[in-house]
């Protein structure tokens, strides 16, 4: 279990104080994987490094297991090497002067473990990442993906209290990244280790996490399950950052429980507000995912436009539809029309149009 409370980290530059982390609080339950997601400079890596002990926060508390590792008010700061955490770095950080085996076994040095036991544990860790056959290779001779596995084996061999991942897949090529993220998820479930995962890749975050924390400018903007964050984002930033979406501006006209009627350039469209926070007259966005738009005119809401541009992408037709001032991006069925200029009407149900306040 990891608990972060009101974490702050600020730097003094010549002219101002920069708040890299500005009051971040969250909790990671035992055995769960929480992802810190956000654009670069949002403070996600700094937060992770504060948990690791590689960075000294300027305010707040961090509890790992039952030990308070950081309590700035009380002057508590447990150094990184005493926190019993495993970490996987973006650059792999594989020591080039050691073999694969030595890289992993190093993590057991300094503990009271017999040589034979250390060997056994190391080989087990290497087997977990399917690298047992490469134990005696010099580490730099491995491919990027293999180096990353060594880094994982090294992080888990000492049975740490939690695992920290700092954009571990960002140096891999696209195909390997997709493979590795499935494997990481499988591994994490298999070992059952509490984990914090940092990434700027939303697809990775959706695939890998139990919970996602979306960060922006040193603050948490949203916290939720991947499906929930994707389907019902709470604000326009999250909606745009995770997946792609179409935002239609408008003003609330009527509220009926979760369903909200919104006055837009295309007439009144009905959307959903699960949080029930909008009131009549509020300026809002309607956020509709491209895959939720259909060209069969079956939904409650309808927008008319002209097909601007379409490409056939196998599973679907990716189309841009010009609707007045807006361009709607949609994934249409394979049989959708593809001739530019053709009139098209897009429809969607009220449950896929999320009403988000404009701010």
């Amino acid at each position, binding site marked *: 279990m990891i608990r972060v409370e009101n974490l702050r980290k600020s730097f003094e530059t010549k002219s101002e104080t920069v708040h890299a982390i500005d009051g971040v609080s969250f909790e990671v339950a035992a055995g769960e994987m929480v992802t810190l997601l956000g654009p670069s400079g949002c403070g996600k890596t700094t937060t992770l490094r504060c948990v*690791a*002990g*590689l960075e*000294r926060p300027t305010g707040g508390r961090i509890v790992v297991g039952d030990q308070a590792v950081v309590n700035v008010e009380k002057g508590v700061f447990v*150094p*990184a*090497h*005493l926190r*019993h*955490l*495993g*970490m996987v*770095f*973006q*650059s*792999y*950080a*594989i*020591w*080039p*002067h050691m073999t694969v085996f030595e890289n992993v076994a*190093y*993590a057991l*040095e*300094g*503990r009271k473990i017999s040589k034979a036991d250390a060997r056994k544990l190391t080989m087990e860790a290497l087997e977990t990442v399917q690298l047992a056959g490469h134990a005696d290779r010099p580490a*730099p001779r491995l491919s990027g993906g293999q180096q990353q596995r060594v*880094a994982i084996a*090294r*992080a888990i061999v*000492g049975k740490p209290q939690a695992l*920290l991942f700092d*954009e571990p897949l*960002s*140096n891999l090529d696209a195909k390997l990244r997709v493979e590795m993220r499935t494997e990481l998820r499988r591994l994490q479930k298999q070992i059952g280790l509490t984990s914090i995962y940092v990434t700027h890749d939303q697809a990775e975050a959706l695939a890998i996490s139990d919970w996602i924390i979306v960060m922006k400018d040193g603050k948490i903007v949203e916290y939720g399950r991947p499906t929930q964050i994707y389907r019902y984002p709470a604000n326009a930033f999250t909606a745009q950052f995770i997946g792609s979406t179409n935002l239609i501006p408008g003003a609330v006209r009527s509220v009926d429980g979760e369903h909200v009627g919104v006055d837009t350039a295309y007439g009144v469209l009905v959307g959903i507000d699960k949080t029930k926070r909008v009131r009549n007259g509020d300026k809002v966005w309607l956020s509709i995912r491209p895959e939720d738009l259909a060209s069969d005119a079956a939904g409650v809401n309808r927008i008319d436009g002209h097909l601007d541009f379409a490409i056939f992408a196998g599973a679907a037709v990716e189309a841009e539809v010009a609707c007045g001032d807006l361009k709607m991006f949609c994934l249409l069925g394979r049989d959708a029309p593809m001739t530019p200029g053709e009139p098209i009407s897009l429809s969607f149900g009220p449950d896929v149009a999320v009403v988000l306040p404009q701010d």
Partner: protein
Amino acid sequence: MSEQTAGAGPSRLKTFVTAWTTGWDWRRLILVALVLMLVYQVVVPFGMIAWTSFKTARPGDASFLDLDFTLANYVRAFGTPRFWSATWSTLAFSTASTFVAFTIGAFLAWVIERTNTPLARLVGILLVGRIIIPGILITISWILIASPNIGLLNHLGLWLTGVRNIFNVYSFWGMVWVHSIEMVPLTYLLLAAAFQAMDPSLEEASTMTGAGVWRTLRRISMPLALPAAGAAVLLLFITTIETFEVPLLMGGRAGIRVYATEIFFNTSRTPTDWGISATYAMAMTVMSIILLVVYFRLIRHSERYQTITGKGYRPRRIDLGRWRYVTSALSLLMVFIITGVPFLMMLYVSFLPVYLPPSMRAFQSMSLVNYTAMLEDPAEALIPMWNSTLLGLGTATVVVLVVSAIAYFVHKTKIPGRKALDFLAFSSIALPSVVLGAAFLWFYLLVPIPVIGTLTIIGLAYLTKYMPFALRFVSSSMVQIHSELEEAAQVAGVPWRKNFFRIFLPLLKPGLLAAWFWVMVHAYRELTVALMLARSQNRTASVVIYYLWENGSFMQLSAFGVLIFILLIALVTASHFISKRYGVKEQY
């Protein structure tokens, strides 16, 4: 284009004429001129030494140019225990000094570059700033500090413990100490680059596995720095082999003779023993060539280690916790010993009319008499300072111009012969200063060009001496300039001369400035070559210090040292200011 052998008469002539008048072939002409210049400046001195070592006749004798060679000098040298004891001393002195300098320098480089030690930047600046103090002044101030009878430390020791002369700087370890301290700034510079290039997540990964600072240092940081450290050790060793100031001033009383001093005394005393000097010079040169070959091997292999860094690379420092105050205190103490102590000693002595260890009486006797005496006798102080200034500025400018042309040909053209240029310009690094001085002296005794006793001969020798170093600075910034930049200009029809001045020089500015400052400061403080070539008219500041030392005028010498220090600081600051204000403008 010029390689095309064109068709009939008139057009062929035209091709030839355009070939020698258009930019592209002026370039070839300059290449030829550069090669000739390098042969004259580098190959001739090498040849001079080798030739002399195989002759019993001396330069100037009629038979000196005959083609009969003899091994008589080698037989004579190798047959004497003096040669072997000099060999042994050179190696022992170099090994010990390298070890001490490396240990201290590595510690400081690590503290300054890789930890969160308070005041680390200040320590770094003071350390590098020390380079502008001439080596001979450092040596002399240590003699004033730790020599028997007059040494400050021995007075302190006598007062504290009642034991006489605890320290004796005139000893093997005394020499090692002074020379090591002198080399620490160089060690720091050599290792700082390596430490900066290291990916900090390699160390953080170690911390995350539960390893403390010291285990990380021992098992991760140190092995990773090994290739760079090996290269630094070799360079320190090569530097010590050719070092001159410490063996010259302290070796005599310590009874330790090394190659450098043997060559100096054999050539500067009458009767000059040319043959033996040349033989020692050959031994010394061969030793540096062997070490350089090993050095380049090592550098080549070290790249394998350095390239392993990730994309998200940010230099980070190790948090030493409370230990950071210990490292801060230790490094401040060291930099005080390295930079502060010699300077303060010099400053103190410069105000004394008669040498006294520090006491009330000494402080009461202080006056400016040494300074006024110096300024009243221009031949003694002002002219040598002017000479050094001229040599520093002149050498730096010429070296940088020559070297940037060389680097341009080597890295930015495909003209045949450019590799030879690189090799020739760099090979003079294997010529120890004392050998270089001897070679230039003998060569100009032989040929009827009247430069002996002028600043020109010293400047020529400096050109050879400083080319390799400046070439490294300029080459490394030259390779960073993409050839597309030049190709774009070529495609646009810009002639190469314009190209060189308009595209390359401005982009090269940082590398050129670094090289210029480096050469300027080193040429100013240089002693070995200047002393070998000194006559009454072309004494440089360092040479005057040596003569003052020979005469036992410590007080005047110290005042002179302080003046040089002030002048150098003014010179460096002014040059920096001028280059910033009027130098080649950045064209972005």
